[in-house]
């Protein structure tokens, strides 16, 4: 009896394309760019697209950590990322104080802060069994309070020129450093999820935690690590955001909480965990940035944009939720 057979021939159909979130996202990005160009000529110019990609990279880096936490399952979600972005921007601004010499210290300080916040989240979720939604929402509240305290005590600090240059000016092949950083993060995520046992473990825990435990996987340690990574990615985004804006201001990171989740869901990662990847999330972040930009172009203010984002997430849940019910 033959056991291992060659690859079954795959039939591609129109429906398969409709089911591929990555392709849908890319198609929507192109459609939105064309729409933007129509509404406001120059919207899809090379310079403008580059600017959009910088903003998308900031969102995409936050979404990388969000992506990992969501993949880990058990209703994994990190609502504290916005608070960490703000915290990192303030810490970075103060540690570098506008001097290039302070950049390394600032990066180390921010990564440590992000890791600590993530570790507390992870411990709360695994050892104290607090649902991730509650744990990270509580953490967000703590961070917001902490930011007010910090802001009352010390000045907000400024970005070092080197950092601003890295984020906004071309450094290699005409692309700014932050876009290269995002590409590197994208490759690292693909490697982590597809070519390391840690990646296999993340998927296993997200899809069936009990089976993962019975197969000897360190479930709790891994889940804590996911929250730590989420905190660190948010911290990296916070540093870059400081470079983008020059100086930090109140709750500068808050705008990232909802979009980081939408980008992940848009990219085809199941909120129930165990299914998805980062490539789709990158497309999702880009798509959301273009959408945001179009809304700005047609003079919809921040509150209106938040409403559109919220509605988008609900629509996505409806769409994917239904797909799941049909498959089951």
């Amino acid at each position, binding site marked *: *009896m033959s*056991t*291992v*057979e*060659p*690859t*079954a021939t795959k039939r591609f159909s129109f429906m398969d394309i409709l089911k591929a979130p990555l392709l849908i996202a890319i198609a929507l990005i192109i459609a939105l760019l064309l729409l933007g160009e129509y509404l406001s000529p120059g919207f899809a110019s090379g310079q403008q697209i580059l600017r959009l990609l910088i903003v998308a990279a900031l969102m995409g880096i936050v979404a990388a950590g969000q992506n990992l936490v969501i993949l880990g399952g058990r209703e994994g979600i990190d609502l504290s990322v916005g608070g960490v972005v703000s915290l990192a921007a303030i810490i970075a601004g103060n540690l570098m104080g506008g001097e290039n010499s302070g950049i390394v210290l600032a990066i180390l300080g921010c990564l440590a802060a992000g890791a600590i916040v993530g570790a507390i989240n992870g411990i709360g979720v695994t050892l104290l069994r607090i649902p991730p939604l509650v744990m990270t929402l509580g953490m967000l509240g703590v961070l917001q309070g902490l930011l007010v305290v910090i802001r009352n005590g010390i000045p907000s600090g400024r970005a070092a020129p080197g950092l601003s240059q890295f984020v906004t000016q071309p450094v290699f092949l005409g692309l700014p450093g932050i876009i290269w950083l995002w590409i590197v993060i994208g490759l690292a995520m693909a490697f982590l999820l*597809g*070519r*390391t*046992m*840690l*990646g*296999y*473990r993340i*998927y*296993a825990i997200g*899809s*069936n935690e*009990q*089976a*993962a*435990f*019975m*197969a*000897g*996987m*360190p479930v709790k340690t891994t889940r804590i690590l996911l929250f730590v990574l989420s905190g660190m990615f948010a911290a990296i985004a916070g540093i870059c955001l400081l470079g983008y804006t020059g100086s930090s201001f109140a709750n500068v990171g808050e705008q990232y909480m909802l979009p980081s989740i939408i980008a992940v869901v848009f990219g085809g990662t199941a909120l129930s965990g*165990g*299914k998805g990847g980062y490539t789709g999330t990158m497309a999702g972040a880009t798509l959301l940035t273009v959408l945001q930009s179009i809304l700005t172009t047609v003079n919809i203010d921040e509150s209106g944009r938040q409403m559109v984002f919220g509605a988008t997430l609900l629509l996505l849940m409806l769409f994917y939720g239904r797909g799941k019910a049909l498959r089951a």
Partner: protein
Amino acid sequence: MARLVAKAVSKTYGATKALRRGDLEVEAGEVHVLIGSNGSGKSTLCKIVAGSVRPDGGQLLLEGRPMTVSGPEAARKLGIGIFYQELSLAAHRSVAENILLSDLPGGLFVNRGALNAKAQRYIDLFQGVTGDDFHADATVETLRPDQRQLVEIMKALSSEAPVLIFDEPTSALDRAQVDRFFEILRRLKDDGRSIVFISHRMDEIFALGDRVTVIRDGETVATKRIAETDPAEVIRLMVGGEETLVAAEPHQPTVVAATAKTVLAVSGLSGAGFRDVSFNVAAGEILGLGGLHGQGQSTVLRALFGAPSPTSGSVQLNGATLNPSSPRATIGRGLAYVSGDRRRDGVISGRPILENVTPIHAVKQRLALASPSALRAKAKPALEALRTKFATFNHPISSLSGGNQQKIVIARWLIDRPDVLLLDDPTKGIDLSAKTDLFQLIRKLAAEGMAIVLYSSEDAELLGNADRILVFNGGRITRELTGEQRTRFNLYQAAYEAGEAA
């Protein structure tokens, strides 16, 4: 005229005939015992009578009139109350609310006083044996297992139905509680009620029953007066004709050399659901664990694997102490565990076959990187050893049949061979050919020197494969069957022997 009659009732679930021909006649004023081995169909018959399962064929008569039971509510209206084996209590509600759950008094608003007063009548029946902190207002989740079972019994009694069905009502009760319960049942019987009683304890059956109906393989084989029969005859009826009493199963006992070295030595192991379990397994031996469902076989195997750890006792693996603190720890020491509940414990659903077959290899070799081509090369022989049918390693495991999914879960242990393989009812719900492949492999692994512990809920699998069988009863090993003793009759007799009161 019998009060309740079931005539040739049948029920099929998919490809499984749960009940082929169930006959039952219950008189007014009698305790009628229903007995049969695991999966013989007695619970299905009860559920049909109680309306929670619809029969495919046959006829039900109540007081001589044909009845159709459209659901549990309808059965209750007809006067049939049932106690369910799997506890069905509302954990956060009070004892009183649970007792009267199906018929809460009052209209829109609950009158707590009336509720508690009504419930108190049933609580009083067990006065003196309920244990501490048992009262109408106690929340069910704060109760001990035996107290919860009492609530479940009171709930059935509160239906005040002429026909009461009790499906293994005494499993968690202590001796005093059982005695009181039996007194109550005898009183109800004298009042003319009909009681159908399912139990696995011969002493209970003979202490309480008036008549006994034996079900075997989904068919009613006999109804006897308790006064005119004895335990041996009942067991013979459950096993089947006289001719099958002696070595009917095609078992080829592996001759384990007396000098074979002991691989796993378990001594005085206790934990939730089992007490003071001791046994040795030698290299090349297949040790069977038998007995009724849920007598501790599965929990012992899980405890050895560290999920969760035993509370006391010692385990020696190859002469060194093993502390089963977690699956990760025991896997590293050379243990393997295959659960029959593959959906819960085995299958990493939605993930590719490759990721499902390699996790143990990754743990044992402490792999950090995952090279799909190298992993495929490792996985292929393991899957071939079990004749696993699959298209590519990239297909999700959920695209396979149940039997092939279980083969993949088992194959993950074969890349780096363990010293001890713990099989916890591994063939549950898989097809016949997969079972055959699995047992061929198990015998081959044993022949190559692996020590194997096999629990199976199918007695034929145990008799056909185990070199020795330990029979579990009430969380303890009550009998060891070796050589010619490994017959179905002995297995049943040991399984149904009076369980020691907890």
